Structures are given as C-alpha cells and as structure tokens.
C-alpha cells in the first residue's frame, strides 16, 4: 500500500543542534501511527515538518524530503495554507481561539472561502459529532469556547481541525492536560476517525501509545530507532533501547 506520508532521509537542525537525524519513515493511510520516545527526541519537530508549521522558526535547516501522497511538501510553489488544510493539527494544550464554539469550528472553513450558511451549519454539526462533542455542546454553540471544560476544549480543537475535512490529523500529546475520563473520550473519538483519516499522534505515555497504536515509531535523540505495527513493537521490540524504554528501565 502507498504510504500517505513519507519521510526520506530527513535531518533537521535548530541552529547547529540536530533535532532529527536522517529519518526515513513511512506513515500508512487510515491508521493510527504513534510517534513516541523520551522528551526532546524530535517528535514535535517531526509533526510540524509535515504541515510546515516550523517554516516561521528562524535559524533552522532541513535536508531530505517530506512527501504527502508522493508529492514533496517543501517543493517550490507549494501553497502552504492549502497544505495545512489537508493536514490538520491538534496541540498539546487545548488552544481555543477567542470567540464562541461556533466561531472556533468555522474559523478554518470561513478562511477557506466557504460562505454558504447552510453548508457552514452542516460542517459545524458534522465536525462536532466526529469529535464526539456534539451532544455536550449543541446548546452552547454561541458560548465562549473558553467556558468549556479542558477535555471539551481539546475535542473542540479536534473538531476545528476536522471542519476542514483534512486527510491527515496530527496530534501532539493531545491529552497531556486532561483527566483520564476526558482522555478516554478523545481516544475513543480517534478510534472512530482512523477509518477515514491518517492519524499521527504523539502520546503522553507509553500506556497510551500501546493502547492506540496501529503502528508505532520510537524516537530517541532525533533518531528513528524502529518502526513496527503496534502489537509487535510493544510485545517484541527489535531494538534493546526500545525495550528498555517501554519496560520503564530507561532514564
């Protein structure tokens, strides 16, 4: 099967400090790929290279190629906003924009030029349902988003990304600020979503990694140590370092 996203010999530097070293990795479509490893391993950097969110960071350097459906994301002439509509992202903290629930979800579609009211209402409901939030907020669509609970806010952020009907969803420790119940709801939502989307998630714990992974990639100090289907990696890791990490013998 064609990989949805493909990293080819990608190295990335902040100034002189390498954050990724010669990473080659295929991410399959319609599955959850977990990117995990100790802090500072380059997981966030990896995710942000896919939607080019690191473009604005000064003093960085990259070699190698990142391909989306076989097309080089960094090729000259790529329309970055359009790329980012195809590749949604959810951050570690719930980051609602100022404004109401409705405004948050419809921010992206409106910028994309969708004006039709009925269409926008439809997008609003569909996205919130997909993020398993509709029932909780359907009567509060015009409340400030900041009044939702942390877990609701994070699912709102997921809904906000989904409103653009992306093909890929990147989640960077999306549940790190949430309690176990909210975490469960987010994970449940992801299990539903993976049938239509390519999901790349940085989990906030090894347990979460094992729970959600269809595929798992272990990163250590910028290096891809190994990548396997999740049930293999977490039961029979090939690399000693992976084993040390998942059994908690690490650091």
């Amino acid at each position, binding site marked *: 099967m064609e990989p949805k996203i493909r990293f080819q010999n990608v190295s990335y530097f902040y100034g002189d400090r390498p954050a990724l070293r010669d990473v080659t990795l295929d991410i399959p479509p319609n599955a959850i790929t977990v990117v995990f490893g100790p802090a500072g391993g380059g997981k966030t950097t990896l995710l942000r290279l896919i939607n080019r969110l690191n473009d*604005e*960071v000064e003093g960085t350097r990259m070699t190698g190629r990142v391909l*989306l*459906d076989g*097309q080089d*994301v960094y*090729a000259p*002439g*790529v*329309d970055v906003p*359009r*790329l980012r509509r*195809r590749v949604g992202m959810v951050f570690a903290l719930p980051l609602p924009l100022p404004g109401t629930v409705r405004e948050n979800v419809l921010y992206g579609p409106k910028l994309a030029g969708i004006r039709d009211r009925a269409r926008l209402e439809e997008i609003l409901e569909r996205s919130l349902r997909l993020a398993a939030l509709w029932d909780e907020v359907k009567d509060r669509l015009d409340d400030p988003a900041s009044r939702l609970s942390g877990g609701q806010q994070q699912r709102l952020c997921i809904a906000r990304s989904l409103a653009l009907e992306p*093909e890929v969803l990147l989640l960077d420790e999306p549940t790190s600020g949430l309690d176990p119940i909210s975490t469960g709801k987010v994970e449940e939502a992801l299990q539903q979503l993976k049938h239509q989307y390519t999901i790349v998630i940085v989990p906030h714990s090894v347990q979460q990694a094992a729970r959600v992974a269809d595929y798992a990639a272990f990163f250590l100090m910028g290096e891809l140590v190994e990548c396997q289907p999740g049930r293999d990696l977490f039961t029979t890791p090939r690399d000693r370092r992976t084993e040390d990490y998942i059994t908690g013998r690490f650091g």
Partner: protein
Amino acid sequence: MGKPEFLSRPSHPRWGEFVIESTIRVLAFSSIGFVILIFFFLVREGIPIFWEISPENLFGTRWYPTFGLFGTLPLILGSLLVTVTAILIALPLGVATAVFVREVAPNWAREILKPMIEILAGIPSVVLGFFGMTVVAPLVREVLGAPTGLTAFTGALILAYMALPTIISVAEDALDAVPKSYRDAGLAMGATQWQTIWRVVVPAARSGIVTAVMLGLGRAIGETMAVMMVTGNAARMPLTLDSLFRPVRTMTATIAAEMGEVAQGSVHYHALFGIGIILFVITFIINAMAAVTIFKKPRRGGLR
C-alpha cells in the same frame, strides 16, 4: 484522492494580501524616512551658518543676533545647567517612587500613585509653564529674596517633574525585571526587605535605571515651552555658582522665541536651524545610547 495539482499555488494569487503586506512594510519603513527627512531639512536650512560666520563667533560666549553675534555657548551651557539640575532632582525622587510603588506600597497606595503619575505625564508643557510662571516663580523669588523668580532653578524644578513619569516608568520596568529569586536569596540570608531592596534589587536594576536617566535627560533637554516660560531667557554665560538662581536661556527656548521674528534665509534664521542641528544630534546620541539597553530585552510575540 489523487488530485495531482493539490499542493500548487491557488488558482488566483493572493493579490489583496500582497498589497496589504507591502503597504504595511512601506508604512513601517517610512519612519526611517522621517528621521532622514528631519535631519536633511535641518541641515538644508541650518548648514550655511557654519560658513556665514566664523567658528569663534558661533561658539563664542555672546548671543546678540542684532549685533551679528551668534555665540551658542551660553545657550548650550544654559540647556546643560537646567537639564542636569532637573535630572539631579528627578533621579532620587523618581527611583524612590519607583521603589515605593514596586516594592513597598500597599495596593491602595499604588492604585492612587500610578494614575497620578499618568496624569502628570499628560499635562501639556505649556500648562506646566503657566503654572510655573504664576505660582512657582513668585515662590522661588520670595524664598530666595531674588529680584526675579524666573531662574534656571525654577526651570529645573518644572523640568524635573516633567521628566519624572519617564524615569519612574522605566525604573519600574527595570525593578520588575529583577528575578524574584534575587529577592528571596536576600531575604533567606537574613536581610530585611529594606536591605534586600538597596543591596540586591536596585543594584540588579542598575542598567535599567541608567536607561531611565538617559531617557529623562533626552526628554528634559528637548523640553521647550515650560522652560521658555519660567527661566527668564537671559542669554548669559552661567559660569558662577549663583547662576542657578539667575535667569538663563536654553537652546530650545531660543529657537521657539526667535524663529517667529526672523527673515527666512537670514543669518539669524540659519543660526536657529544650526541650534536645531545641535539639539537633534545631542538627543540622537542620548536616545541611541538608551536604545542599546532596550535592544537587549527579549521580545515575545510573532508566529511561534
């Protein structure tokens, strides 16, 4: 879902945004243009003075335009006398107030002090000059038993208050920037809060306080209306000790008072622009020096 052209540029380029962003850039960089324009027009109107009269005349001790004497020295010294005295008054007052507001004052006192200082910053210079003429000058005359209350000291007093808001707010920022750990360390070593303030916090804020003085100095030396209204405007060399309590004349007051009456293109006209050049250069240097410390401050914001 293999739309082959999906990543390429939008079918219609974002012209609107291009225009807006270019406009923003042009508007921003116009500020550099304004500085250059200011300098250019000062030089254009003022440079002839440097060959119209001799350097001895220009930097002489007597300013009597009607007799062709354009000695700027008394004006420069006058400005210096008033400005430096003003800062000597304002610095201790300003730093003490900043320390009080930041470190000591109970909330209610802060709530009163800060708006009052904002009000002071907002009072027009001409209003303070008017107040100085009608209230402060007579007071100075009474106290000194001098023939007039319009003296360098009166000007310095008014000017000190005009420089205070700048000094206080910059000094406050400087104190604010001192890490809490410094304070805690001082207190943990058994020092009182008072000792900690003067031995740890204020020294740590030193460079910020220097900036405050520079900016206050820059503001004071360029101040015009209030100074003109209360210093008596006598263009004499302030060389003796009692000069502080005699009338004096500053560079700014000279320009403001005389420009209205000179013929365009005359030597006198060029001389006034020449003073303008001197003022511009002095304040440019002072502010550039203050700016060096400001540049060091980390900034946040932007995309990231």
